[in-house]
């Protein structure tokens, strides 16, 4: 019954999810078991790249849930992603212990440089993995709750909401750039050593993180599917299409928007937490407003309002980004801008919509 509802009723989603699972099985085997000179070997670089893409796909899913289904355009999801990343980064920093450059048993290198004497209160507890993970969910969740409560209660919608979410992520960026904030300022958190006792430099750990990202993506997808196929999901679509009608049907529109926003923020935070150990650094640059806009482009390109479309979009746009930034870095921003214009004009339903159109033509 539940499998029917979550998977079988959605062929595109099943296909994309199948590909993700297949990738999560084949890539580790081809990386670890197949010898380096074989044509089937997958390089360490590719594993890292695909792991990053998986995190981006989860992030795109969270943007699509709020934008595609509830019609709330958030241009500040990078804030939740980065906060989740910082949560994980703080745990990884605490794992360094006295192996830092200055060898202080408790303080981070940047704190020693700032001549701090003791660990700030908000760094307490992050040496415990479970506590750090709890914070990864709670801090962005609470921020989204407070921010969303204020915004939705005053019935801020549309462009205005998009602008204030941009302001939110920009404000956080400025705050985190300051050294006195205690998050490493400009340099952010880096030079991580190990996670849960596993060496982060070891390829087996990296493959483990890759698989964890794939699992998170699958679970995140199923959770989103559960929400959008429930009655609450239909209420959310109704809010998108006819907000006042929904209100006069007796639904408290604001609380639906609020809880969906909070869930979406937490999903983005999980993506951030998985991203950081794979790239080995988190700095305030991730808060940059442009990042949050890029996420929206992924979703628009893939197909807004279909969950698997977000995954397709995140993979294809990021693949294109990797390709173009390698071969001609200057052109990427133009291509990104052009892509957004093209998608808006020609492909309002994204890549997924394109396939749908072909299929319908085929049936005719």
């Amino acid at each position, binding site marked *: 019954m539940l499998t029917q509802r979550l998977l079988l009723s959605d062929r595109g989603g099943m296909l994309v999810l199948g590909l993700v699972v297949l990738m999560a099985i084949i890539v580790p085997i081809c990386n670890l078991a197949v010898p380096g000179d074989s044509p089937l070997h997958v390089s360490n670089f590719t594993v890292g790249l695909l792991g990053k893409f998986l995190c981006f796909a989860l992030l795109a899913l969270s943007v699509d849930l709020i934008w595609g289904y509830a019609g709330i355009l958030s241009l500040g999801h990078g804030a939740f992603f980065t906060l989740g990343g910082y949560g994980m980064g703080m745990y990884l920093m605490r794992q360094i212990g006295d192996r830092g450059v200055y060898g202080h048993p408790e303080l981070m290198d940047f704190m020693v440089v700032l001549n701090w004497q003791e660990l700030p209160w908000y760094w307490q507890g992050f040496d415990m993995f479970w506590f750090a993970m709890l914070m990864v969910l709670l801090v962005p969740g609470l921020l989204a709750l407070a921010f969303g409560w204020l915004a939705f209660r005053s019935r801020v919608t549309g462009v205005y909401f998009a602008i204030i979410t941009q302001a939110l992520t920009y404000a956080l960026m400025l705050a985190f750039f300051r050294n006195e904030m205690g998050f490493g300022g400009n340099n952010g958190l880096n030079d991580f050593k190990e996670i849960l006792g596993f060496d982060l430099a070891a390829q087996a750990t990296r493959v483990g993180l890759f698989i964890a990202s794939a699992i998170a993506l699958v679970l995140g997808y199923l959770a989103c599917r559960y*929400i959008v196929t*429930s*009655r*609450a999901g*239909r*209420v959310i*679509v*109704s809010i998108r*299409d*006819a907000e*006042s*009608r*929904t*209100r*006069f*049907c*007796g*639904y*408290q*529109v604001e*609380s*639906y928007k609020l*809880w969906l926003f909070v869930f979406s923020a937490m999903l983005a935070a999980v993506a951030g937490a998985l991203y950081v150990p794979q790239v080995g650094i988190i700095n305030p640059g991730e808060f940059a407003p442009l990042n949050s806009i890029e996420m929206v482009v992924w979703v628009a390109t893939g197909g807004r309002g279909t969950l698997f479309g977000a995954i397709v979009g995140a993979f294809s746009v990021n693949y294109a980004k990797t390709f173009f930034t390698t071969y001609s870095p200057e052109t990427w921003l133009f291509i990104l801008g052009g892509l957004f214009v093209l998608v808006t004009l020609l492909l309002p339903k994204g890549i997924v919509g394109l396939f749908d159109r072909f299929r319908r033509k085929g049936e005719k």
Partner: protein
Amino acid sequence: MNPLNRLRETWRPDQVFDLVQPTPTFDKSLDTKHGPILYVEDVSVSFDGFKALNNLNLYIDDGELRCIIGPNGAGKTTMMDVITGKTKPDSGSVYFGQRINLLKLSEHAIARGGIGRKFQKPTIFEALSVFENLELATASNKHVWYTLNHHLSGEQRDRIDEVLTQIGLTNHYQQEAGALSHGQKQWLEIGMLLVQNPRVLLVDEPVAGMTGEEVEHTAQLLTSLKGRHSVIVVEHDMAFVRSIANKVTVLHQGSVLAEGSMDQVQSDPRVVEVYLGE
């Protein structure tokens, strides 16, 4: 209101403070023993100095079908906004039954409590099927966490089937609502109000843009609701009003100009003047 008047108002000898009144709740049965189900008293609303409603008084009896007519800008839609909680009036009171002060409640609470509203332009959930539209509107617990894992009970399903027959869309229940004709959309919206089991239905221009046959069907539908629900219809189409109404209220410049049967109202010289121009 200046502070002195406010003080006088507060210390009036017959003042009843809110705290000694029972809290408004929709759970207890509605107290309508004096007749009216809806009391709109001395309500005034102004937008930037323009008085949309000016000491409006209106009483709707339980189970009656009332038509409200009036020229453009007479305050018909504003009146509906006030009753459904969309607009808060500057002064006056609106009571549902004798106990429930609607001015203290939010839109969704009023809707849950039994006042349904149909908009001028048909607003339905176009992306969903006819059945899903009715399912969403059905009276039930409408909190977020509840709807996340909720299925219709047999009783609710029966009620939806009943309403589908009533609005004549039984054969279309699987169809996407956006693909319905204009008239069918209007009926679906009325159906969405009916599954909420409202005591009062506010219907704004139900026959605008309908064909003759559709108008007739709508008239039948609305008159069949009489008795079970109180229905307030705002309409421009005089022939339609004549065909369904036994009591008509004429609004003009935000207050009641005349009230009575269609014939009485039409022969009232003030009404004639307002409609035919000075």
